[in-house]
């Protein structure tokens, strides 16, 4: 059986296209606002504070925070893109069409998560380009950089998809990103090396999964990391597998979708 016969690729494409169209329709919100906020981070952290902090691991502070800043946007945007994309049809009721269409769960996930991940990857690259206007950038392992970018975008889009299905209100939709993801990202070494922390806090920080994402991503830029790259990659993949398992469970039981 070939792929075209086994899968409803037209449906995947139809959903993906609508998701991308939404991004272009709201280009101001989707693209320009993250670019502006990233620039602000550079002005405040990079220039104002960075002029007082000299170097971390031999990297200028401005350059040091670039991977963390990209991760910050990548995580929050992946989650909000994917959670909104599936929550909105649930909210207005138009989800009936998706559920009544000859579309498999796998196709639904590929389309929605693919759309959300694509948007946040594009965004990550735009932030990278914006950053290069402020600081001289150097990417030691570009292939790994892209691998971390894609892996993280997909993982957190899956996570967002789960939140979107779980959420019963717009408030719940905002809750997880606001109360969990943003603090974890800020405390996960976006703006500092966790080696700068006192020992106790360093140990506590190691329970923060975002540390591994940022550390691995930063390694792909500068070849320096807080924790070993293997562990970073391993943790990212573990989180991806957990998300896949939850999505599989949601679809097997019809949780908050078909009941």
């Amino acid at each position, binding site marked *: 059986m070939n792929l075209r016969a086994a899968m409803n690729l*037209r449906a995947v494409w139809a959903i993906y296209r609508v998701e991308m*169209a939404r991004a272009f*329709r709201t280009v101001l919100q989707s693209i320009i606002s993250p670019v502006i906020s990233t620039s602000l981070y550079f002005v405040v952290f990079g220039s104002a504070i960075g002029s007082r902090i000299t170097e971390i691991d031999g990297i200028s502070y401005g350059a040091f925070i670039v991977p963390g800043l990209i991760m910050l946007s990548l995580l929050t945007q992946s989650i909000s893109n994917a959670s909104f994309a599936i929550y909105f*049809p649930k909210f*207005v009721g*138009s989800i*009936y069409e998706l559920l009544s269409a000859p579309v498999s769960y796998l196709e639904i996930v590929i389309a929605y998560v693919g759309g959300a991940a694509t948007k946040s990857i594009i965004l990550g690259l735009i932030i990278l380009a914006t950053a290069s206007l402020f600081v001289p950038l150097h990417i030691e392992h570009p292939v790994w950089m892209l691998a971390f970018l894609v892996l993280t975008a997909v993982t957190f889009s899956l996570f967002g998809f789960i939140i979107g299905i779980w959420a019963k209100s717009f408030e719940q939709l905002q809750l997880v990103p606001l109360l969990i993801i943003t603090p974890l990202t800020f405390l996960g070494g976006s703006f500092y090396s966790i080696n700068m922390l006192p020992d106790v806090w360093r140990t506590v920080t190691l329970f923060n999964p975002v540390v591994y994402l940022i550390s691995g991503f930063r390694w792909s830029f500068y070849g320096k990391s807080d924790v070993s790259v293997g562990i970073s990659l391993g943790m990212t993949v573990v989180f991806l597998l957990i998300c896949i398992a939850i999505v599989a469970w949601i679809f097997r039981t019809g949780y908050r979708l*078909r009941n």
Partner: protein
Amino acid sequence: MGEIFALLGPNGAGKTTLISIVCGIVNRSSGTVTVDGHDITRDYRAARNLIGLVPQELTIDAFESVWATVNYSRGLFGKPANPAFVEKVLRDLSLWDKKDAKAITLSGGMKRRLMIAKALSHEPRVLFLDEPTAGVDVELRQDMWAMVRRLREDGVTIILTTHYIEEAEAMADRVGVINRGEIVLVDGKAELMRKLGRKRLMLELRAPLASIPETFSRYALELSPDGGQLTYTYDNQSERPGVASLIRDLEAAGIQFRDIDTQNSSLEEIFVNLLRQEA
């Protein structure tokens, strides 16, 4: 040639739930459902390919254009793009001049038609219309019924739920009655009306009667308060004697009448009676 099947039932009887199960929106707790021989779980792609659904609520992505919305639906069902077909659907529903308008700018009636266009975009063989004319003005309702009849001529099976029993009466080939989650009865509309329908014979008398004579007790006649009209209610299953014998008996008794009128009970009366028997 398709069929129009009306599913009738009081609020909360399970009409929408039944449709939702068949269409894959709600998981069933037990039982099996097949659509044209395709099991809706094991063979869901084949089953759903055959079905178009127009739900009760108006739920459309408000920010997409009419054209994009309908083409999206077609893509979702795995059909290759066919602009000519989509154009025909939109023209049939008088939405063609609105093809570039965003859904949010459409009137309620137009949104309803857009929902129908979406359901028809993938050329379904079975069309579910859940309360399609709720809140739709009379003229539009006429147009919609004309369209439904055309679909039937093209071989599409239409299953509709409605609160307007006159509508089922005017449109349906067969009627199903659902109550408290169970299909109580399925029958051809004509058979249903013949079997369960009552007839009423009204006789306008030349001279008013003070009371009904004893000899007519087996007919259980009703006399109007002014004594000027006799009403005889009968049905095909009843053991009461026929109209002919009543008229013979009236002549024999010297009761003369000026005019005769008959009335068939409507589907609504049948429906109400059925539910009353159930309860």
